[in-house]
């Protein structure tokens, strides 16, 4: 009898589904993944749901309701290894912008009967409620990195996911620095690598999709943005994007409020 294939399950919280779709987007590798693991729960791909426990759980989305909190705790119990994928699950996502506002006011404005809405004050990363074994960054995550993490866990080795800056990726692929050569504000020096430096390669500054790098000096970067002519508001907004509630970006945006 062949060895039992590891069971992989995909779970979703407050998110756009873009990250779990990265798995479907794996195209050539998708068949290999399907051959190597038993996909036990992946509603975007199949209606088939196998009961837990699972060997690997991929969790997408942020925790925004009391029900989410209960559900993510239950998922944790069911997963031997739990990997949070994407900016929502690792930093609260773009919806964490509400963390600066009064959510009750939103519900009063949007819903005719706000008393039926049960929501938390803040959109938070999965890791603020449960223990997470690995956080895979990105908005969305990079499919090669997702495969690397799956490969690493299946082969019982450390995933090769650098936590250094996007600048290193620009230099490795030969992209000319947009901030130095074109005076375009770029979050690259403070942002974790992983996307392959897509935006600078297409002459745009980095938007910080992969969140703060290992030891971001956001203060020095903000100072440089000022030298490039960015306003206080511009700087605040630059750090308040998909990873707005990641600590380093949150503090820097608050400093320019």
């Amino acid at each position: 009898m062949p060895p039992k294939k590891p069971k992989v399950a995909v779970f979703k919280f407050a998110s756009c589904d873009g990250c779990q779709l990265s798995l479907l987007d794996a195209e050539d590798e998708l068949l290999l993944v399907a051959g190597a693991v038993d996909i036990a729960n992946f509603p975007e791909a199949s209606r088939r749901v196998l009961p837990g426990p699972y060997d690997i759980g991929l969790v997408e989305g942020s925790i925004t309701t009391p029900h989410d909190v209960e559900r993510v705790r239950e998922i944790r119990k069911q997963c031997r290894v739990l990997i949070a994928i994407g900016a929502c699950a690792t930093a609260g996502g773009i919806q964490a912008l509400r963390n600066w506002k009064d959510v009750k006011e939103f519900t009063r404005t949007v819903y005719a009967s706000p008393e039926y809405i049960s929501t938390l004050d803040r959109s938070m990363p999965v890791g603020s409620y449960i223990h997470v074994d690995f956080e895979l960054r990105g908005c969305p995550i990079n499919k090669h990195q997702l495969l690397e993490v799956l490969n690493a866990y299946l082969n019982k080795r450390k995933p090769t996911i650098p936590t250094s800056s996007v600048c290193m990726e620009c230099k490795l692929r030969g992209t000319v620095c947009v901030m130095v050569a074109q005076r375009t504000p770029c979050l690259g020096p403070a942002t974790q690598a992983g996307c392959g430096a897509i935006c600078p390669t297409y002459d745009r500054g980095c938007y910080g999709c992969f969140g703060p790098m290992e030891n971001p000096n956001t203060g020095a970067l903000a100072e440089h943005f000022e030298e490039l002519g960015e306003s206080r508001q511009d700087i605040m907004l630059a750090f308040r994007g998909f990873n707005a509630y990641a600590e380093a970006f949150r503090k820097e945006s608050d400093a320019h409020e």
Partner: protein
Amino acid sequence: MYIIDSTELHNLMEELIKRGYLLIGPTVRSGAIVLESIRTVDDLPRGFGDEQEPSHYSLKRRNDAMLFGFVVGPVSWKKFLYPPRLTMFKATRAGKSFTIAPEGTDKNRKLAFIGVRPCEVSGILMQDQVFTGGKYVDRAYKAARDNAFIVAVNCTVTGGNCFCASMGTGPGATRGFDIALTEVLGGGKHYFVASAGTPRGEEVLGAVTQREATEPESRSALDAVARAAESLTKRMDIRELPQLLKDNFENPRWDDVAKRCLACTNCTMVCPTCFCSTVEDATDLTGMHAERSRRWDSCFTLDFTKVAGGNIRPSIRARYRQWLTHKLSNWMDQFGTLGCVGCGRCITWCPSGIDITAEVDAIRGNSVHA
């Protein structure tokens, strides 16, 4: 000394192509002069110059037809001898054992570097020492290096961040090239004064030109390089520098620079002498295939100094200090020279505009022994 007219430069390039070389040279892309595969003189940045300051680079139109009227761009030649990523070997599981297939670079690929600046020739010679000078030779580097043909171009213009004269590496090349050219433009003439540094350089020059330089032509070339030397505005005071830095391990300037340093690794990536790498292993989902590769790393990343039990350089202060003291102090103990060639790339391409010469001045200024 020979003369190659500017209209004959393509003969030199053709000759190298005929001898099996792939040409790499400066060309304009993405608002900068980068080093890429080129084929003809038309690919060169004719009439382009560059303006450089700390954290600032801009391409400028010159009002002449100089082919090499600029200094150094973001790419250094190390990219071609010591590639950013290199597959070292691939392994395949076979029963209880496994087989290994070595990869590495294409040993037959011959590159000709067109337009290597004197500071960069020095950078290549320094990396030769790192990769081939000791007991253990980096085979991939050596193969690429043995196959590389170097056409140096002496500098007749200088950039705002250049300080080669302080480091003794330019603006004229004295060794390390197959052919050295000096571009002369003026008085209605546009030509290159050429000299050979190796027998194969002599051979190639012989096939391209027979015309010897006249005394005034040679003098024009020497004068142009001398004028460049005089026009350098940036300097580094290297007197007793290795010891000065050793004595200033706790200088308050390190705290100051740590506030500005982004730890983004740009300085190390663009440096022509920085040589650090990391080794990464990859496996496929089945666990049947594995691959080991090497990629550029930097002393500014946290992983670089992560060891069992913790990180030996957790702060940006410690990491910047490591980088600068390695370049300008410990390199001397390790290789007998300073590890900086004065190309100024780390100054230009640092988003924060940290200037290595200013940092040295500041440390000298409030040295504990001053």
